[in-house]
């Protein structure tokens, strides 16, 4: 077919606290308030997405961790209850997710032909990870678009951040090629926070905002460094900085989502829109969009083969 393209890339962190604080009907626990500035940031992101025409969301979450290759959800629908293993008091979410299996299989095949180890996940009892659910809910609470869910291969543990990046760059390229071949318009989501040193105990009232702050100043400086690169279209430099950033801030970028997404966008040189930055149990979280619709922001590097 051909002619498909990525219409936007999103950095959409997945702390369950934000869903908890929204009180959607799918989530069992109820909150009084909390993390408003980040939630308002997500509101701005959703507003922006309303003006973008897209068919499918492609997401990579660090909470579906696989050690033997990269996996893709491979059935049309998954419906169950997701309980966060760390914050079960905040997140017990009844989900009903439609999967674009056709596109998932195309990315799978493209990645395989590029030499990556891949596998389709076709067990109907499989429980979708809470990172995928949280980022998708906050991005598109109507759940009216199918998704492609990609696991986080933990090559970082076996080798290094550098090896992880090599693999994720390949996966990003495969994603871009598969989307082009599919003829679909896709939003790609990197589901992760930035600095990830967090508190190791929880305040009595989880949404007590008087307890919320960045874990330490060094994390904040690193977050600002990364955000400034995003704002200035310096994503190549950001990728180069990734190993040091990941090590210094124990960042969730070790899961590969941000590298994969920037690779799929072919390293945008135009500025990202930063909708918000805030902390959740001490971690740094930025909500950002790379809008490829602008003429000047056309992604280069997709050949029409």
């Amino acid at each position, binding site marked *: 077919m051909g002619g498909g393209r990525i219409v936007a890339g999103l950095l959409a962190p997945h702390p369950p606290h934000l869903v908890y604080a929204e009180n959607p009907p799918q989530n069992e626990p109820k909150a009084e308030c909390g993390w408003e500035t980040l939630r308002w940031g997500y509101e701005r992101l959703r507003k922006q997405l309303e003006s973008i025409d897209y068919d499918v969301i492609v997401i990579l979450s660090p909470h579906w961790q696989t050690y*033997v290759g990269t996996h893709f959800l491979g059935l049309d629908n998954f419906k169950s209850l997701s*309980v966060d293993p760390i914050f079960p008091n905040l997140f017990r979410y009844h989900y009903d997710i439609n999967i674009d299996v056709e596109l998932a299989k195309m990315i799978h095949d493209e990645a395989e032909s590029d030499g990556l180890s891949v596998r389709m996940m076709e*067990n109907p009892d499989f429980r979708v990870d809470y990172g995928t659910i949280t980022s998708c809910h906050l991005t598109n609470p109507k759940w009216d678009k199918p998704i492609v869910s990609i696991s986080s291969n933990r090559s970082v543990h*076996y080798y290094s951040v550098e090896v992880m990046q090599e693999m994720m760059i390949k996966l990003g390229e495969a994603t871009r090629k598969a989307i082009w071949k599919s003829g679909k318009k896709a939003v790609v989501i990197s589901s992760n926070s930035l600095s990830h040193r967090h508190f*190791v*105990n929880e305040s009595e009232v989880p949404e007590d905002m008087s307890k919320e702050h960045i874990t330490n100043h060094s994390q904040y400086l690193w977050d600002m460094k990364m955000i400034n690169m995003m704002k200035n279209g310096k994503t190549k430099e950001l990728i180069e900085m990734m190993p040091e950033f990941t090590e210094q801030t124990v960042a969730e970028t070790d899961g590969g989502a941000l590298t994969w997404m920037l690779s799929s966008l072919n390293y945008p040189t135009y500025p990202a829109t930063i909708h918000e930055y805030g902390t959740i149990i001490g971690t740094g979280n930025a909500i950002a969009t790379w809008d490829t619709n602008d003429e000047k922001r056309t992604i280069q590097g997709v050949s029409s083969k």
Partner: protein
Amino acid sequence: MNGEVVLGLFVPAHPHPLLCPEKSPGWARLREAYEQARMIIEESEAELILVYSTLWTSIIGHQFQGLKEPEWVHVDHDFHYLGSMPYKFLIDTKFADNLANSAKARGLESRVVSYHGFPIDTGTVVALSLLNPDNKLSAGICSSNMYSNRAETIVLGKSANDAIKKSGKKVAVVVVSSLSNRMFTDKIKPHEEKIHSQKDDEWNRKILEFLDDGRLEDVSQLSREIHQQIRVQKVVAFKPMWWLAGVMGQHNNFAGKVHAYESVHGAGCAVVSLIPKLDEVGDKEYDEDDVETYHGDRNVLDTIISEENEEENNDSELSEESSNENEENLEKESFSSSRAPKPVGAYPHARKVGDLLYLSGVGPRQPKSNAIPGGPVKDVTGKNLDYNMKAQTIACIENIKTILEDSGSSLEDVVDVTSFLINMDRDFADYNSIYADYFGEIRPTRTTLEINALPTPIAVEMKVIAKIKN
């Protein structure tokens, strides 16, 4: 009657022995070994099975499964193509509360999780499905905190032992973990199964040689080296042996048996049993601190600290009138004596309020050596021992005397005594006679109580209030 650990098991976490043992001879041998372990549990007459799986990682303190009958169909994140794992377990909810409370009492952040659908990890599902298939025993399940290192993990194990004693039950404790955890990062066929590298294999065999000899503490002490040598370098340390030693006892007095050692997708997997042995003393190759209470850094959101800081800040703006109150506060000093036995928790030996000195409970342990004059009331396995109550009471009062003198008071200034005995019938007469030797002429008020247990293996503890000398 105190509960006790009757058996320890080390078992693998991968789902292969549960879901498809027939596909590989090695997986079949692991399945057979699991079955042997199940029979050992049955023979041990254990009433409860406690599982610590390294695959249930927690980050906010330590979590304990508290739902009575958790039920789900579990699928592994990596090996989903091998099939689903339906389960329904029976949890001892009272024991779960005890686990959490015991952990808190030893300074750990902990909570019970009691939610339908809470994800029980692959390792726990595999272990409980194979070791306790009909739920004949009720179970306890505890998490493995991602960041906890040796001290915290050992304290967690000790707190589990506290809960076991309190439960009055015979308990089989199970650690679910691989040895070397490096898997092949690509697909392999079952017949290609082998340990990932020769180095991993050599280390696995070294560990198993120790365990086969019952040398749990030696393996526990080797854990950091094991982590460096054969573990994929995640955030998580190799900690299962720390926990197991914490709960079973930090020694080598076990009858060990390796029932199987095989690879699963390249990782080293073994089934090992350890049975407490009373008639033999094992070698101890290492000597590190034996931590009783955790005083670590889990206080990021500690409101007490921030409130104190706030008070300090406010103090600088206060009037002269309120600064007098500050001076009064400063008089509330606490004291710790280097000549007295180290406290076993986060408390000072004594605290001064006004012209009175309040002492924490003081036992007979000797400073530095921790030896107990008159002998301990039980050994490391929990077996009761004979002891001399008079010697313990003398040592206890001498310790009190030391603390009082180092805090600006003396035995003659004592105005009130509260004594705790673990066996009133056996010990009261001896205690009373020594007490009379020291306090007969001073004549403070006194209360004597019998209690179930004291934190260390002693028979008497005393708490006093004394006047401070001008």
